[in-house]
């Protein structure tokens, strides 16, 4: 209990910067979606994510039942909820890995995966979708590193192939990124020669290599042994201070409370409630939220 409290203390200063943004986002997500008109400050803002009334079904099961959420530039939104609640699907709609059946998503005011023609939203050609995805990094639960490439080759693959950067430049940047996740000395190792935690850190470096505005984390620590979880979470904590917008799906409640400016609780394809970590963890308004936390948070875990 005291350890968690102490860690909380150390991150409050870092979070202070986000504090005002957190309040706006909390307000926005609690109410309606903020439709952002193109404005003069558009240039300065980077990584504003707006999800508007997104619906998605797999067959007859509706997994997203009209979800709206706004995350301000540099904001850190953590999505929690029981399995099957649609968290991962929502995350995957943000980079159009999953097509929506209704609603839309914008990043800095630009529609993701669609363009307006007349009064219809037409799906973009794959080429344009791929270009949009270079602004959105994604980290997967099962790492999905390319096993036939070394750590460094994994990191520089997309900058070279998708962004047509020079190999020398990509290597230099790749080594910087591996250094940032503490793996510079393992640059030439293949994924199978690395531990799970190391692999996920390489995957984070790979996602960062495209200089994304937004990073999506899909249960980044769920496939890890308990003792390896923290090395990954520490890297994400660092990123939270960097001004990149982060949207994280996780089951690590302590981490969520630490790092989030907005915690979003989802259940059965809907956002039940969202707010600051204090609001959601200490004073949940909804019964469903309360009963979920009572199951996943150990008794010793207190605010």
């Amino acid at each position: 209990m005291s350890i968690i409290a102490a860690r909380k203390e150390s991150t409050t200063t870092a979070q202070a910067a986000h504090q005002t943004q957190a309040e706006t986002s909390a307000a926005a997500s609690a109410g309606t979606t903020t439709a952002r008109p193109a404005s003069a400050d558009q240039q300065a803002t980077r990584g504003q994510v707006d999800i508007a009334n997104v619906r998605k079904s797999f067959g007859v099961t509706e997994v997203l039942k009209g979800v709206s959420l706004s995350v301000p530039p540099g904001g850190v939104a953590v999505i929690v909820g029981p399995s099957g609640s649609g968290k991962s699907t929502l995350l995957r709609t943000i980079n159009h890995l999953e097509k929506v059946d209704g609603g839309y998503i914008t990043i800095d005011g630009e529609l993701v995966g669609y363009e307006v023609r007349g009064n219809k939203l037409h799906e973009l050609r794959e080429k344009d979708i791929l270009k949009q995805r270079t602004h959105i990094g994604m980290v997967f639960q099962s790492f999905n590193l390319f096993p036939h490439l070394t750590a460094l080759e994994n990191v520089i693959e997309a900058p070279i192939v998708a962004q047509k950067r020079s190999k020398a430049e990509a290597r230099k940047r790749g080594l910087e990124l591996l250094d940032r996740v503490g793996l510079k000395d393992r640059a030439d190792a293949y994924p199978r020669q690395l531990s799970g935690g190391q692999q996920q850190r390489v995957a984070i470096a790979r996602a960062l290599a495209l200089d994304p505005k937004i990073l999506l984390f899909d249960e980044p620590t769920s496939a890890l042994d308990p003792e390896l979880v923290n090395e990954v979470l520490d890297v994400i904590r660092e990123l939270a201070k960097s001004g990149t917008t982060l949207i994280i799906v996780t089951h690590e409640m302590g981490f969520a409370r630490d790092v989030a400016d907005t915690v979003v609780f989802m259940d059965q394809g809907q956002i039940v409630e969202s707010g600051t970590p204090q609001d959601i963890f200490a004073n949940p308004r909804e019964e469903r939220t309360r009963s979920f936390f009572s199951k996943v948070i150990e008794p010793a875990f207190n605010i």
Partner: protein
Amino acid sequence: MSAIAPPATADTAPPTPDYSEYKLVPARHPWRWVGTVLVAAGVAAIAWSLVTNPRWEWGVVAEWFTAQSVVNGLIETLKLTAISGVLGFVLGFILALMRLSASPLLVSVSWTFSWIFRSTPLLVQLLLWYNLGYLYEKISLGIPFTDVRFFEAQTTTLISQFAAAVLGLTLNQAAYSAEIIRGGILSVDQGQLEAASALGIPAWKRSTRIVLPQAMRAILPNAFNEIIGLVKGTSIVYVLAYSELFYTVQVIYNRTQQVLPLLLVATLWYVVITSVLSVFQYYIERHFSKGALRTLPLTPLQKARKFFATHVAASPTKDAR
């Protein structure tokens, strides 16, 4: 209370003797030795009969082994294998991608191709291609249902024995390699494609740089099976009187009546080709296992070097002891 328990059991149990000074002796396997001796005896008997039985006519084999006509036939066999092997796998790769595409038209075209060419005997296919001139006198390229022709030729001049052989072997090979390549691609985890497309990597590069190098591990053993099969499979084009290795030795033994020695000549050459291919297979498979194994096993050459180094270095120290 529980803290007292361990010494209590130590008191009651008999004291464990100290084995730390004992030498470890591996288990012995006497039956392995018996088996080895029996197999060695069998091999020796076969070898002895091969050498001493004059009817093998090794002299005749040696005489024809490097004869000009046989070597020419060998070159034709290698040419057919190389051309139809490469074309067959290229076409097979395209067919595999078609089969895995989202387009129902491409899927059914690819499926039908494999269905037809896998369900008809290669012999029939070859004869059909060779006799295409009987079915279609002229082959022309133009706009259908009009008189516009860009190119026109007699079928019999276009389809030579060589063309019929390459056409038949290639199309047949493509049908089989398409399935092998498709199997390889399916063996790669879906998450790889997902990660690559999340990184904005275009579809073609996803196939060639991410999926195919990983699929190669599953493709290669089967692909070499096919290539080795093709080497010997080319002997079937003797029905077109195409003078590859097998047809050449047939022509020779029909003249000299030395049937078995000349069949041995052809056989030995097929063994040589297969052996060379097996060496290639080993090293190519090793190349594509990069990252799949934590540490690559040593190549036979490296093993030999290591053996030599350790044993040559070890023997003086042994003497010194």
